[in-house]
Structures are given as structure tokens and as C-alpha cells.
């Protein structure tokens, strides 16, 4: 298909031989269209990184076919000039400065203007003149992000891109992805962080045990999301009133150490009705946990299984 940036059919990857063989991918089918931001989700060990390394020809498929930007990764090294890749464990030797590394990588791609590198580094608050060995994990990850984005590639392949970044930088990263999307670039990213997936992706694929379990729109995923909620009140509130709120389960009301009471529950779907109900009382604290993606996958699988 002409408008597919990534097209994977019947992809099988086994590591090792004989009795020690381990199947990482067991017949994966996946299509990512040009210009979309595609989230690639799944538990650890599901085969996300294996898929990504296959797209870049770092490893070779046992069976099945892969096409990236219209070419087979194995036979078109030049295609990789149009790909930006950020590994899940981005490691580079520490003896060089970020500027040296980025200039070198840019040269391998046929040259990236120094001004472009400087502009990206400034946005991420990265000091290019420091040796990479002296940088913190978060700062090294910034180097990884700069090298993936700096040549404005047609396709970005990002493996857990925001690991090690603080929330401020996660936000900067989300902006970079949104700009790439507005620019017509395709983004394929694996992630564990639901908020960044929600902020950037249109579609997500969920992989489990080496197979694509389902592809869904991000909104569908959000509706399924379960958040742990804790609201503290100045006074004691009746649990029964909250039990009738739509989407709220497992309501408990107990005494709060600081006085008053604390309501704990699990919320799925819209928080609107809960907020309105709580507003009838004096609220002293509100905590909504980020939904756990792993948990989310399993509720999603169950629902898919039933329907």
C-alpha cells in the first residue's frame, strides 16, 4: 500500500535455536499510515522492542515481511536517512560532547545544520558542550531525542521516548511530536505513559505475547481507563451518595488522619458527575492517579474477549 509508512505482515522472530529458542514475535500484522502518530503499547516482554529493532534492520526476521517507507529495511540502507530512531536504552560512549556526537550523526545522514541542533537543544535545555559521560540519565535522553528529531525525518521510531524525563520535559517532548505530526511526519512510538499517548497518538496498537491484540482509537482506550481517586473532606460524607455516581466503583469512606474523612474509589470514564457530587461538601484534597497502562491492557483484553 502506497500510503503505509510501516507495513508488517506475518512477522515472526525467534531468538536462539533448538530447545533454547524463544519466540518474541509470533505472526505480527501491523500497518502504520503516513502522517499518523501511532502508539505501540503492551506489557514488558510483549515484543515491542523486537518489532522496533526489526524495522531498523538491527535484527532480521525469522519469517514474514517488513516494509518501511516502501522499502525492505534489509535491502535499502539509504531509507534509514529518512528515519529518526530513539532506542529504549539510548547509550553512547561518554568521552565525547553532545555536539561532537550530534554533528557526527548528522554527517552520517548527509548533514544537519548546526543551527537546527542548537535550536532543539535549547528547547530541551541541553548543554551541548558537556561531555556525555558527565550528563544525568535525563540529559542523555535529551541527546537521544535531539538526534532522532534533528533531520526532520519522514518516520520517527521511538522506543519509550520519555523514560527518565521529568514532567516539564515530557511536555516539551509531546510538543515536538505534535509539531512532527502537523508537519506530516509519521511517528511510531512505544510507551508506558498513558498521558503522553493520549496527548499525541490517534491510534494505538496493543501487543501481547508477540501478537497484535487490537488496534483502537485513543478515545476508546481512555473510556476504559481506570483511575484511583482519593478525595478528602472537611467533614464525614455519606458513602451511599457516592456509590450511585456513574463510573465509580469500590467506594470506601474512612476517617482522615488530619480530621474529616477520606473517600477512596476507582473511576472509569468521565469524572464530571463525581466532581459535581463532591462539590456539595467542603473538599480539602483531591488525588487522581494516572491509570496504570498494564491494568488498562487487561481490562481492554477482557472487554474485547467478551464482545
Amino acid at each position, binding site marked *: 500500500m502506497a500510503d503505509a509508512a510501516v507495513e508488517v505482515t506475518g512477522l515472526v522472530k525467534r*531468538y536462539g535455536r533448538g530447545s533454547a529458542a524463544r519466540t518474541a514475535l509470533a505472526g505480527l500484522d501491523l500497518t502504520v499510515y503516513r502522517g499518523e502518530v501511532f502508539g505501540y503499547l503492551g506489557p514488558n516482554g510483549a515484543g515491542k*522492542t523486537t518489532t522496533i*529493532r526489526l524495522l*531498523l*534492520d*538491527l*535484527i*532480521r526476521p525469522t519469517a514474514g515481511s517488513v516494509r518501511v517507507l516502501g522499502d525492505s529495511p534489509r535491502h535499502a*540502507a*539509504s*531509507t*534509514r*536517512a529518512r*528515519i529518526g*530512531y530513539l*532506542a529504549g*536504552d*539510548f*547509550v*553512547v*560512549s561518554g*568521552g*565525547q560532547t553532545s555536539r561532537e556526537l550530534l554533528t*557526527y*550523526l548528522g*554527517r*552520517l*545522514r*548527509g548533514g544537519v545544520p548546526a543551527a537546527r541542533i542548537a535550536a532543539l537543544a535549547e528547547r530541551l535545555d541541553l548543554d551541548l558542550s558537556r561531555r556525555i559521560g558527565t550528563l544525568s540519565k535525563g540529559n542523555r535522553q535529551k541527546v537521544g531525542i535531539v*538526534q532522532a528529531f534533528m533531520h526532520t525525518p519522514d518516520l520517527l521510531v521511538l522506543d519509550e521516548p520519555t523514560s527518565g524525563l521529568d514532567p516539564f520535559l515530557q511536555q516539551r517532548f509531546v510538543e515536538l511530536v505534535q509539531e512532527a505530526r502537523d508537519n506530516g511526519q509519521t511517528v511510531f512510538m512505544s510507551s508506558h505513559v498513558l498521558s503522553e499517548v493520549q496527548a499525541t497518538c490517534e491510534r494505538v496498537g496493543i501487543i501481547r505475547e508477540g501478537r497484535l491484540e487490537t488496534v483502537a482509537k485513543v478515545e476508546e482506550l481512555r473510556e476504559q481507563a481506570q483511575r484511583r481517586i482519593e478525595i478528602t473532606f472537611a467533614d464525614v460524607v455519606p458513602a451511599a451518595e457516592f456509590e450511585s455516581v456513574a463510573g465509580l466503583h469500590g467506594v470506601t469512606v474512612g476517617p482522615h488522619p488530619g480530621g474529616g474523612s477520606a473517600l477512596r474509589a476507582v473511576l472509569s470514564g468521565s469524572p464530571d458527575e463525581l466532581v459535581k457530587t463532591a462539590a456539595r461538601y467542603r473538599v480539602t484534597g483531591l488525588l487522581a492517579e494516572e491509570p496504570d497502562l498494564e491494568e488498562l491492557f487487561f481490562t481492554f483484553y477482557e472487554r474485547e474477549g467478551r464482545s
Partner: protein
Amino acid sequence: MTVLLKHLRDNRRAFGGWAVAITAVATMYAAFWPVFGHNADLGRAMEAFPQSMKEAFHLTDYSTASGYFGSTVFGLLVPILVAVFAISAGVRAIAGDENAGTLDLVLAHPVTRTRLALARYAATVLAIVAVGVLTLVVMLAIRIPADFAELSPGDLTAVCVMLTLFGVCFASIGFGLGAYTGRRTIALGGAAYLAVATYLCSSFLPQIKGLGWVRWCSPFAWYLDGDPLTHGVNWVYAGLLAAVSLYFAALGVWQFRRRDLTS
């Protein structure tokens, strides 16, 4: 070219350090020549050693400059140091980087496996050549002050050429094993094992009756058996060193193109 220069630049400290250390050892040995060359007692003491021991330790003749330099400066410590350096540089070229996890990034760029492997191999060979050239330059510089002018620049060049080829041979073994397996420990272990085994083949094992032929299988023997300090470069031995180098390098590159990168 970009990949080659980058590899040299990334390893400039290690490569430079080894080059200086090896040259310093060679210079130190050479500086002792006036002591040995003018000491007849020492010569007689050496003659008393059994022939097989003299052969095992390259202690053939300390009374001439070519004998002394062939046994000490270029005979023992320098080739061993060169072999150690060459193996570590060869293994580092692919397997070292691969196990450190830093190879993925470069190969995710528009760089083919072949291009990367050949550029890294060329950089490694250049580092070995630099060691040979530096040693030669220092030997030529101290030839007259250290009183071994009887060794002509041509003789010294010949031995340094053989030393360089010998280094390239072990670098290629380390490189080839590393590129083939992608495992640093296997490559280091395998190349070190070969170095020790072939050293024994050139020194102790031939002393055993009926095992004289094993000398023919050793890069250590190919390096000095032609006696380059008096007879110049021996093209048969030079060819053998080059052939083994090419064999290991080619085998490594061939498998490196086909296999998965280790993660």
C-alpha cells in the same frame, strides 16, 4: 571515511597510549645495546645456555646488533605487547562497541553493515600501522646515539614492516572473532588463546622431538624467522601474515552482514 575518523577519534587515548608504551619499551631495550655489545663476558655466559633454551627465548646471539635486536627489542616483549594491543583494538572495533550497546545507534543510520565493518577494520589497521611507524621513527632517530648504526635504515624498516603485519594479523583475529560472534568475551578469549598457543608453537613446542613442524603454524615464527634485520622482508612470511589477516577479517565481515546485532 566519517566512520573511520570517528573511530580513531573515539579511541585516540587508548591508541596513543599503546603506541607510546610500545615505543618506550622498544627504546629502553635498544638503549641497553651498548652494554651488551661491548661485554664479551656476557656473550660467553650466554653461550653456555643449552641450544634449545636459546631458541625458545630467541637468545641466539647477543654479540651482533642484529642478534641482540632480533632477540630482545623485537624478539620478545615488543611483539607480545603489540599482540595484546592488536587483539584489544580488533575486538573493540565491533564486538566491544556492540556489547556496550553503542553500535545500534550508528547502524540505525544510513550506514550498511559492510561499510561500518570495513571502516572500523581500516581504522584498526591504521592504529597498528601507526605503532609500527612510530617505533621505526624512534629507532632511526636513536640508531647513531645508541651505537647500533650497523643496522641500516633498510634493516630497521624491514623488521618494523614485519612487526606491523604481525600486529595486523592478531588485530584481524580479534576483529574477525568479534564481528562473527558479536561477543566481546568470546572474541577476546579466543584471540588470546590463539596468541598463547601460537607463541608456544614458535618457542617451546618445537623443542619436543617430532613437533618441529608446529613452528610453521605460528605468526610469531612468520614474523621473525626470515630474520628481517639481516635479510629484509621475507615475502613468504609476509604473505602468510597478510593471508591469515584477510581470512579472519573477511569471515568476520561476512557473518556480521547476516546476523542479528546482540542487544
